[in-house]
């Protein structure tokens, strides 16, 4: 395979990939006089169009993607991204509109926003939604701000937020960013929230409990109603991380069970593509109590007209510019409408079926720390394999040699050496079986040829990379050879 250099290494100042039309207005140099100018940017790339296209074409081919195959990254819900969604989001009516256009010219855009809000309300049972957060973590922060604002209005913002130990890292981080101290709640043996521990921790200084449901072990928090009661009794709020909503659509509505705030990840549950790390969209749904605090602007429907409402005295304010990742919203709306009510329920059904099929097919060869029934994902660990000196990362890397993407290995922290597998509903039995076979084969290899795993992957564009070196001697940008730094 040809090794693709950095674009800077292909650059030659006399090439060019793009031509602008001649300037059609006068351009007297002296006009520039008053400005603090820079020189042309030295070492900025300068290549031809064929070189740019080939550069990215070749780079792209070193990526694994959902379009290529199975991507069971737990918690990330890497489902197939329907292509019609890309098509409708590329309509010039959607891509071309300036965000400050007068409202009468953007009724279609506003309708898209409002419509998705309404559908998310129906799916979750929440009273209101904001679509502004740009990702799940942004939604968490927004949600925590709503809670804090509410408490503040009551006279005291409170001090703590309770978070189970198995939570995604963004939860504690978001709570902290919102000025709260985090109290970790240990999970019980079933892998769920320990009610006793919760009761004990839940004081009037606690602003909220943030739970993920199904949690990061894939387990449904069956005591959700009791949990809500406990939290509510002390005047706290129940925040649900809804990143795993894919397991629940059409089967459980958080808003009906006492959840006060939820964020959803459109780039997980609602199939908008991840783009190698965004853009996402993290809508936040709230109960009536919290609605007055939603960020501005809020889309308001009056008859068949829509407008943006800024006159919201209790609002936490803005959490970003304009109105959210609009084109992501367009895709999610197209997805939901393509499925309809039945389709959404089928999604959760098949997503959970696929996960349980994998769980059942691997539980004899990989250790299952929690035997509680799980929904959309299952979390094994490397416990059986550790005796051969093999860990979850080795297993993950070896999967790559089988042409498959590894599961999540970095969390939940409650499972040492976790292998967190989320197949999603879009996979075929053939692909599931391919994964199962590979995992079983790897379990054998771990016993018989552990070095095969430890040295994996063998077939990729680069082999195992030295992450420690990257962190210890950070090289975070290219510099021309012979330049004085780095």
């Amino acid at each position, binding site marked *: 395979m040809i090794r693709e250099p950095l674009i800077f290494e292909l650059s030659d100042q006399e090439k060019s990939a793009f031509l602008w039309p001649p300037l059609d207005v006068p351009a007297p140099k002296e006009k520039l006089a008053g*400005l603090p100018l820079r020189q042309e940017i030295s070492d900025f790339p300068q290549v031809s169009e064929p070189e740019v*296209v080939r550069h990215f074409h070749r780079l792209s081919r070193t990526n694994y993607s959902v379009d290529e195959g199975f991507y069971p990254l737990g918690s990330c819900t890497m489902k197939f991204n329907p292509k019609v969604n890309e098509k409708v989001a590329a309509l010039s009516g959607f891509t071309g509109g300036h*965000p400050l256009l007068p409202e009468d010219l953007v009724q*279609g855009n506003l309708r898209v926003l409002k419509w998705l809000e309404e559908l998310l309300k129906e799916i979750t049972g929440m009273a209101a939604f904001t679509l502004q957060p740009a990702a799940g973590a942004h939604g968490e922060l927004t949600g925590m701000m709503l809670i804090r604002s509410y408490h503040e209005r009551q006279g005291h913002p409170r001090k703590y937020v309770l978070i189970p130990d198995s939570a995604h890292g963004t939860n504690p981080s978001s709570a902290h960013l919102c000025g709260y101290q985090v109290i970790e709640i240990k999970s019980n043996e079933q892998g769920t929230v320990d009610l006793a521990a919760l009761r004990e921790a839940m004081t009037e200084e606690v602003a909220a409990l943030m739970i993920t449901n199904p949690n990061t072990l894939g387990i449904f928090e069956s005591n959700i109603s009791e949990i809500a009661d406990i939290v509510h009794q002390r005047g706290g709020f129940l925040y649900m991380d809804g990143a795993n909503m894919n397991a629940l659509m059409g089967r459980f509505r958080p808003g009906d069970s006492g959840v006060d705030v939820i964020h959803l990840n459109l780039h997980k549950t609602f199939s908008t593509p991840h783009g190698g790390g965004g853009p996402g969209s993290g809508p936040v749904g709230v109960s009536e109590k919290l609605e007055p605090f939603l960020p501005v602007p809020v889309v308001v429907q009056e008859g068949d007209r829509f407008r943006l409402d800024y006159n919201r005295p209790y609002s936490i304010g803005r959490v970003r510019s304009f109105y959210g990742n609009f084109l992501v919203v367009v895709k999610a709306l197209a997805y939901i409408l393509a499925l309809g009510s039945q389709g959404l329920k089928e999604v959760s059904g098949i997503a959970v079926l696929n996960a*349980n099929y994998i769980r059942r097919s691997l539980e004899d060869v990989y250790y299952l720390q929690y035997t509680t029934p799980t929904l959309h994902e299952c979390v094994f660990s490397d416990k059986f394999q550790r005796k051969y000196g093999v860990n979850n990362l080795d297993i993950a890397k070896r999967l790559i040699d089988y042409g498959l993407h590894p599961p999540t290995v970095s969390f939940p922290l409650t499972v040492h050496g976790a292998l967190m597998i989320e197949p999603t509903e879009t996979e075929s039995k053939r692909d599931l079986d391919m994964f199962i076979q590979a995992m079983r084969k790897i379990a054998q290899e771990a016993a018989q040829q552990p070095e095969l795993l430890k040295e994996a992957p063998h077939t990729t564009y680069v082999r195992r990379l030295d992450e420690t070196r*990257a962190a210890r001697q950070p090289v975070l940008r290219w510099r021309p050879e012979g330049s004085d730094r780095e």
Partner: protein
Amino acid sequence: MKYISLSTQDIKEMMKVIGIDHLDDLFTTIPEKIRYPGALKIPGPFSEPELVQLFQEMAEHQNSYASLTSFLGGGAYPHFIPAVVDYVSSRGEFVSPYTPYQPEVSQGTLQAIFEFQTLICQLTGLDMANASLYDGASGAAEAVLMASRITRRPKVVLAASLHPQYRQTIRTYCRNIGLILEEVAFTEEGRVDLESLDKLVDNQTAAVVVQSPNYFGVVEEWAPVFQISRQKGALGIAVIAEALSLALLQPPGEAGADIATGEGQSFGLPLAYGGPYLGFMACRQEFIRQFPGRIAGETIDVEGRRGYVLTLSTREQHIRREKATSNICTNQAWCALRATIYLELLGRRGLRELALHNFYKANYLREELSKIPGLSLKFKGPVFNEFVLQLPVAPSQLEPYFREKKIIPGVKLEEDYPQLKNCLLICATEVHSKDQLDKLVEVMAAALDHRPKKGGQS
């Protein structure tokens, strides 16, 4: 369902393996009393032809604006997007992977991020950059939080000429952690009032946040601003809402900024009614441990070949949890990819030329408009590709007339700045032909003529 790949037979076989009879048996951990009994009230399923038609109708509903000439800027800028950007970025290998947690099968994304980081460093004149943030506004807020972590001081000074939405976002982010925000006024020129700034900044100040070109399009002198911040031990945060300006104007790093952050939408992202856009951030090397967001770094593989990984993750939420430098996880990677393609395609010369075109177009328009009796330039400071025009009447009065002429002349400033009565923020870029600029001038003159006789016609 067309997005599901199992046949009924498959489902049967799989249920047998699991040992259940019905899909619903998988959901028994949801207590019956809270299991959703009915069917959600969701329309559909829409077939693809219906879906396309429906969205076409919604997209066209506003498509009236396709036939209008708009001079709106104010944080979102109309620019030409080369075909290569769409073509390359739409490849499934770029659109459909997750964050590159497994670097061996993600080199494409990672090398692109590494190149993006380099480009942002080159543009800003700073040492290191991250893989992206949500947008310019939240990026500015992240910068403020970062400065507060570094300095552990309670106050932040914002230029009043910082984009109003950015100020509002910073406010939202800061309120909960007790940071005090102060604003420094602008001069007649439309620039930060250095004297007031000097007075405001003290040893309790964590950061000074100044945008250039500022919200009025006026190019700030960054150097004296950051001299003041530095003298008081505060950090200097440069905000750039029109990233293209970085191709022409002194890079903030050179002018003494500690952090530069901004909005990269101009680099190959459509206006898209406000998003997804592209927050970027760069800083001095010394702040590396407090830097938020994903970062790609270079390393080698077991065979000694160069490769890229996400690095410095001990700053991040998935390792540090509540002690992370930011809660950011999913960012705007694909938007950063588009910016990377865009910048590499335009190249050094193409980007510079484009910046000059923007400059000359806007300044031509500014000059021509200012010749119309009754109109005046609100600020005398030099501008990049937008500027503030003061009208003798409220712009809303002329709106019907402009609409009739199929023109959206600019952003009304009075809502955000009551002191800027009758002021319009007008933007011109390479997408505006001289004919369109001249037409605005002509219509503006006519609109004013028109007015005394009876306001706009409808």
